[in-house]
């Protein structure tokens, strides 16, 4: 048994693509070895990566496939042998199979007797197979963006392949990837190790050999080193903490081969800039971690993750350089901030006329007017039920919501759209409610995000998004399949999330009506939003699909009500009685469908001639229906479902004893009328027949 190592040496691979490619290479190598019967049962595959390499080490690889025997089946025995003498057909087959005619034997199958030959297949060597198959596997790794680099464009890959190491224990496996012949020589850290070759003496020593060349090939180890170094650097500032940022940790893990961390400072005067701007500059533009004090407020320091290990002199230079860049960026931001204040948001309305929202629709000035109309309809709906909010603040916020698109700071930090508008509104004394609503208009940005905390922010968010959806549907730009260039699904998800998690007395219908959607377009938007409610319940809230189907069959308009019903239904599924009742409802549905197909009509349930069980079910239904209706009114869904579950004895007895589709039309009609009534009475919370009971 041997260890196999493959390392593909590359020019720096984009950080965002490395993890996926590392896993894929590991999978491809291990699948290939398995497929070719080269992997021992106890084999172990480990993958590694740095920005300059992808590697996989398979421990427990066979040097050669086991020999196998297989029986090749030829022509029928009668054709091959006449009077025990081999015919030309037998000779031809023996030749093809590579055996003597005398070695042919009879093979009996279900179809009859045939000529067979036992063929010995000598197992191929691992080297032979790897050389033939592995390059193809490596070159089919998926990359979000590819390039070609060799003349004649023979292959595409993420970046040029510069070296390949392929070893079976200590021996080089003679394969070639992208024109590079494999060897046993890797490369170390560009600066700390330099250009001296790094010889890998044994496959299993891969990680150790590279450590000696200032490269940590294990991703988890680098992650741990970075986290510890961040902690250690932060400890030099009393009471401070670095701001956790998993995505940024992953990025720097994939930007480094030999990570270390430095702490740098910036002038405290920049803390006067909004924290959002400071953090965006540090995190998004510079890939620095922010540091906060014991009160959670930003401290005038930053942490930079380096791809080197500098001495004191180097560390001072690097710290100084990074601080210098950060200062310049902060200075720029302050310059833009000050410049933007010269034109208050209120004076920016007119300039929105030259900012296109959508070519076929209009400018952001147009968009703002539309949003105002939607917001005022939503406001009326809230006022009619005396829901507390500030109408004045809402309208002001809607009016100014898009004006920050003309601000220099937003042009510089587009990801802070809305946030900057809110900060400006606050700085310009437009009131906290207005400022907050503008600030949070784009939240939630994803299904994991928080909804706006202010009612005005929620309403602005709803108005803006539903207007966009309806308008885009109106010009035929609804999402299709995986294509959603205007992110309308995301907008609709946010609408559903706000309705689900805020306390607004609004239904989906209210929101759609406020948009002024009409006719066919309105129906399309309704269906689209309903689909998003389904997604929200199932994928965001994690309800079982049958619960979601059952609940939504009884209505999706009131999102919070649907959630309450789904919660009650999920809990009720644990009860045996409830499951039995659900099964009965499924049966009812089936019978009613059959009856309809046969043209049987349900009639008034006059049960004088019916068996006792039918009369009993009728009585229970009448009693329970009243009770359930009351509980539903009170939204006491658990109690309602518990009540429905008590129907079990009556419904079980009914189906035990009564043949619903009685030959007598009058009896049958009455029975159908009865079960129809049962179904109607109890389907206002959920369509229980959707529940999977089997």
């Amino acid at each position, binding site marked *: 048994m041997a260890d196999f190592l493959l390392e593909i040496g590359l*020019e*720096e691979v*984009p*950080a*965002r693509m490395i993890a996926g490619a590392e896993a894929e290479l590991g999978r491809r190598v291990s699948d290939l070895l398995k497929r070719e019967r080269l992997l021992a049962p106890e084999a172990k595959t480990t993958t590694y990566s740095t*920005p300059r390499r992808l590697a996989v080490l398979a421990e427990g690889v066979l040097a050669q496939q086991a020999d196998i025997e297989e029986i090749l089946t030829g022509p029928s025995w009668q054709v091959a042998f006449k009077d025990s003498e081999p015919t030309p057909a037998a000779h031809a087959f023996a030749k093809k199979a590579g055996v003597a005619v005398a070695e042919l034997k009879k093979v009996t199958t279900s179809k009859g007797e045939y000529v067979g030959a036992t063929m010995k297949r000598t197992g191929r060597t691992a080297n032979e197979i790897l050389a033939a198959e592995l390059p193809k596997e490596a070159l089919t790794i998926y990359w979000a*963006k*590819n*390039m*070609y*680099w*060799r*003349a*004649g*464009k023979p292959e595409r890959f993420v*970046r*040029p392949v*510069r070296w390949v190491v392929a070893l079976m224990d200590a021996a080089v496996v003679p394969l070639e990837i992208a024109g590079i012949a494999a060897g046993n020589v890797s490369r170390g850290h*560009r*600066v700390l190790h330099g*250009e001296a070759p790094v010889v890998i003496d044994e496959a299993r020593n891969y990680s150790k050999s590279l450590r000696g060349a200032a490269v940590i090939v294990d991703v988890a180890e680098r992650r741990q080193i970075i986290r510890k170094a961040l902690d250690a650097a932060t400890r*030099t500032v009393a009471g401070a903490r670095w701001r956790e940022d998993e995505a940024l940790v992953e990025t720097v893990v994939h*930007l*480094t081969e030999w990570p270390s961390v430095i*702490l*740098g*400072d910036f002038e405290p005067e920049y803390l006067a800039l909004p924290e959002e701007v400071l953090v965006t500059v540090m995190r998004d533009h*510079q890939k*620095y971690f922010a540091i906060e004090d014991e009160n959670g407020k930003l401290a005038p*320091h930053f942490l*930079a993750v*380096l*791809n*080197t290990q*500098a*001495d*004191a*002199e*180097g*560390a*001072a*230079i*690097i*710290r*100084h*350089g*990074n*601080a*210098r*860049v*950060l*200062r*310049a960026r902060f*200075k*720029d931001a302050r*310059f833009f901030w000050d410049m933007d204040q010269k034109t208050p948001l209120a004076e920016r309305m007119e300039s929105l006329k*030259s*900012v*296109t929202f959508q*070519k076929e629709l209009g400018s952001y000035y147009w968009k703002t007017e539309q949003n105002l109309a939607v917001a005022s309809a939503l406001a009326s709906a809230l006022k009619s039920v005396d829901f507390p909010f500030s109408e004045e603040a809402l309208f002001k916020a809607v009016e100014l919501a898009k004006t920050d698109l003309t601000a220099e700071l937003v042009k510089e930090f587009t990801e802070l759209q809305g946030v900057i508008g809110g900060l400006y509104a606050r700085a310009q004394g437009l009131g906290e409610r207005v400022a907050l609503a503008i600030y949070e208009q784009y939240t939630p940005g994803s299904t994991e995000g928080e909804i706006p905390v202010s009612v005005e922010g929620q309403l602005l968010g709803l108005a803006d998004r539903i207007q966009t959806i309806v308008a885009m549907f109106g010009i035929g730009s609804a999402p299709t399949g995986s294509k959603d260039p205007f992110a309308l699904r995301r907008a609709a998800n946010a609408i559903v999330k706000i309705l689900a998690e805020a306390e607004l007395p609004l239904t989906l219908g209210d929101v759609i009506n406020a948009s002024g959607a009409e006719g066919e377009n309105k129906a399309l938007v309704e269906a689209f939003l309903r689909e998003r409610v389904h997604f929200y319940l199932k994928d965001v809230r994690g309800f079982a699909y049958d619960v979601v189907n059952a609940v939504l069959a009884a209505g999706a308009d009131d999102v919070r009500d649907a959630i309450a019903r789904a919660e009650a239904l999920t809990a009720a599924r644990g009860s045996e009685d409830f499951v039995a009742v659900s099964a009965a409802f499924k049966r009812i549905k089936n019978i009613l469908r059959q009856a309809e197909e046969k043209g049987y009509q349900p009639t008034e349930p006059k049960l004088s001639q019916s068996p006792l069980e039918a009369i009993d079910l009728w009585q229970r239904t009448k009693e329970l229906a009243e009770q359930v209706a009351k509980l539903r009114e009170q939204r006491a869904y658990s109690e309602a479902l518990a009540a429905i579950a008590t129907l079990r004895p009556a419904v079980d007895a009914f189906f035990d004893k009564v043949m619903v589709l009685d030959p007598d039309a009058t009896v049958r009609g009455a029975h159908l009328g009865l079960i129809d009534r049962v179904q109607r009475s109890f389907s206002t919370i959920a369509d229980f027949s959707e529940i999977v009971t089997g």
Partner: protein
Amino acid sequence: MSAAQAAPRVKPTSLTFQDLLFRLQRFWAERGCVIQQPYDVEVGAGTMCPETFLRVLGPKPYRVGYAQPSRRPADGRYGENPNRLFKHTQFQLILKPPPVNVQELYLESLEAMGIDLKHHDLKFEEDNWEWPAGGAWGVGWQVMLDGLEITQFTYFQQCGGLDLDPICAELTYGMERIAAFLQDVDSIYDIVWARDPDTGAVVTYGDVRLAEELQFSVYNFELAEVPRLWEHFNSFEAEAHALLEKASALLADENASPEAKKRFPLLPTYELALKCSNLFNLLDARGAISVTERVGVIGRIRNLVVGVAKAWAMQQLLASSG
């Protein structure tokens, strides 16, 4: 206070702006590059110069470097912002095809400018490049030195809408940034451009260029006359179009002599297209191009630029075959 304050003082380089340029040019000259002079037509980036844009087309190997002043009218700040310029200097390098050790050569070029990599943090971070009006794109990196982007490193894949084979590596060094960083000055205008070896008297970047930044900002943002800019644009475009039409007729004409084809003035046609591109940038800085219009005007420039690229590739083919 953190340990950062106690750190030893960082020693700035004594190399001037022009020293850095000399060193880069010498370094690449010694590696077989033609050192060209800047192109004498306004461009937004060194990539747009024919020494890059047209040379990368076709199979012929080429290595060239030049320091190209690049104009971005909208980036002007009247000389008041210490980090932004209307016109900055790109040291542009084309290696066609790229040698296998192109990254190592690049690192050596940094050392040639006096950057001791042992004392710095260097990262190649993904950054792809695209010039839609030129039908050009490539993949590559921004090279980060201690958190500062000092170079754009691109493997060109397409240019003028044509696939490149072989491809080339393009290195674009941001000279003002590199100089400000190495000289450790907070404002570009404080960069020492030249130092008198006898007296030690210095001439700063501000001495050389501040007036230009101020006056061009005034012109670009305030005084450039929009209708006249459009007039110029339309006129250059019309002339380029007329030439392109003639070119395509001539190049497709089987009876035309190879000599007639080879002498057809595509290089001047390309200059006319560059003029249009610069006028577009001026109009943009004047706020004269609405978002809706933008796409249309870029499309018009693209027609010219891509048209020239295609005709040029054909003309070169003729030149090499005959």
